[in-house]
């Protein structure tokens, strides 16, 4: 493993621990999908994206749209650890008057590029940003993290067509393919497979990778950045609840309260 990947794994553990603490404090929120997205978000914010945390609205920055907005804890923890705001703010998540709303609000939180909440909407927003970049001859890239269950939303595929039709090679979407949605296994509810083929058919450059292997993730992002004339889709195989054994691969942990006892157990697993 390269030094960077090793370092990122350590950062991801810190982010996972923050997520658990936030969810314990808040008494609600979405553990499973936050933990499955953590390595992807860590790779983006520490290595892939061209950002300046001391200048959150720097015009040339790469943009990130968290279409799977329920993974907000992972994004907030990453932003705090990256220096956008004080780590202590994380303890206010989901509370009255907090800067950290249940789902990301760009007017309240420094570092959030787009307010999101309703499922299926992020990729269209990412496309709009990317079209503006091309119009203005700016070189920033736009990253959009989509939940796999979320790809059951029709708007995702409308947006998939738009990105391909306009050759938005400055768009990189990542599907967090943890195979578990709120009500259970995606394949039993509304089968997504073969998901990579669906995106290929929509004329995207598809890169399939292990969404928890930092080296593979970094390679996937590098490959995506090198593709010309087409948007890229990183199909990241992940594990819902990754890092906390009793949460792994469990739909039950999509949206469940973290109790004191279970918190201790989870933190031990993440030590």
């Amino acid at each position, binding site marked *: 493993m390269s030094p960077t990947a090793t370092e990122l794994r350590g950062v991801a553990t810190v982010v996972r621990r923050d997520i658990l603490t936030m969810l314990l404090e808040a008494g609600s929120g979405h553990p499973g999908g936050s933990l499955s997205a953590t390595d992807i978000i860590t790779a983006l914010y520490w290595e892939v994206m061209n950002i300046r945390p001391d200048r959150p609205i720097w015009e040339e920055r790469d943009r990130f749209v968290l279409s799977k907005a329920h993974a907000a804890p992972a994004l907030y923890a990453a932003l705090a650890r990256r220096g956008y705001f004080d780590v202590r703010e994380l303890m206010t998540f989901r509370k009255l008057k907090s800067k950290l709303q249940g789902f990301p609000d760009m007017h309240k939180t420094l570092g959030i590029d787009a307010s999101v909440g309703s499922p299926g909407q992020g*990729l*269209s927003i990412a496309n709009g940003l990317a079209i503006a970049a091309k119009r203005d001859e700016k070189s920033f890239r736009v990253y959009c993290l989509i939940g796999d269950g979320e790809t059951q939303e029709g708007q995702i595929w409308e947006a998939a067509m738009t990105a391909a039709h306009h050759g938005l090679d400055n768009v990189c979407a990542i599907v967090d393919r943890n195979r578990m949605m709120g009500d259970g296994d995606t394949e039993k509810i509304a089968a997504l497979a073969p998901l990579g083929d669906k995106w290929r058919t929509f004329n995207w450059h598809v890169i399939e990778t292990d969404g928890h292997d930092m080296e593979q993730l970094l390679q996937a992002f590098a490959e995506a950045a090198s593709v010309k004339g087409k948007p890229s889709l990183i199909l990241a195989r992940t594990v819902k609840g990754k890092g906390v054994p009793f949460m792994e691969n469990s739909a039950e942990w999509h949206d469940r309260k973290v109790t004191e006892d279970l918190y201790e157990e989870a933190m031990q697993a993440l030590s």
Partner: protein
Amino acid sequence: MAEMGLADIHHSAAKLEATSRGYERGLIELAERGFDIIVMDADLAGSSGTGEFRKRYPNRFMDIGLCEQNMIGTAAGLALAGKCVFVTTHGMLAAGKAWDIIRSTICYGTLNVNICGADAGLSAGAAGGSRQSLEDVAVMRTLTGMTVVVPADSMEAKKATIAASRLPGPVYLRLASARVPIVTTDLTPFTMGQAEVYRQGDDVSVLACGVVVYEAMKAARDLEDEGISVRVINCHTVKPLDRAMVSRVAVETGAIVTVEEGASIGGLGGACAEALAQVGRPVPMRIVGIEDRFGESGEHEELLQHFGLTSRGIASAIREVLAMKANGANGVRGETTTSG
């Protein structure tokens, strides 16, 4: 009328034009003046009023295809990057199909996306009830931070389009494709959020928006012969409502009638009723609109007639409300029938 800068609608044959043409001229003027606007359409450029703009400014125009939700989401991204965007589609497809995207992405983000509901109201005419957007004003009005404007004619639509580009937040512009009389001129004042008195009168006030402002003017003129003095107010901005004007005319004339080419639930009439109930001065009131029913196929003019939205229907609502006023009714309706 001339002193108010209105067109002479009673003495010469009124000129007819779709309000969407005014929208198009507004867009062209903005582009000519060098404003960095982007106009999007979802496969309706042929009819929605963006066709000429597309020809003249292909680089500022994007036909995204038949995907209204995605169009509005994409517009959100463009607005996040600093663009002023106008999106155009049928009223029903904007306010209905894309409502959640407008709410959760455009309004929640306070983005400068102006949504033009073309072919709204009964304009879809022959296409019938499923295509006629009667609920759009009501559902757009509930959105936080949304401005809702219903231009009376193409002149006003142009002014509203230019004004919308200057508001930092979202605007819903409700447009008609039916050719309707031009009531206003270049000189008629237009300020977003400010209702305008188009005709003075003391017995009753008619607050109208959209293409039925003309019908309200006609009704006022017709009733003049019966000795009824009708004040007519163009309430083009349904949200934010000009509450001061609504309260003032209600108190001064002691009775009001609202008129809109759409659902009588939750639109201009609902907004005025909410406002008046809360200033503690409710007056006898009638809401002329389409009451809890879908539209149906027919020519625009026939449909206005059918739903009681012409000067005749408005005049009968005025007589009803005056009877209530004379009987001392205090906003309580008796056995009178609905006019819608």
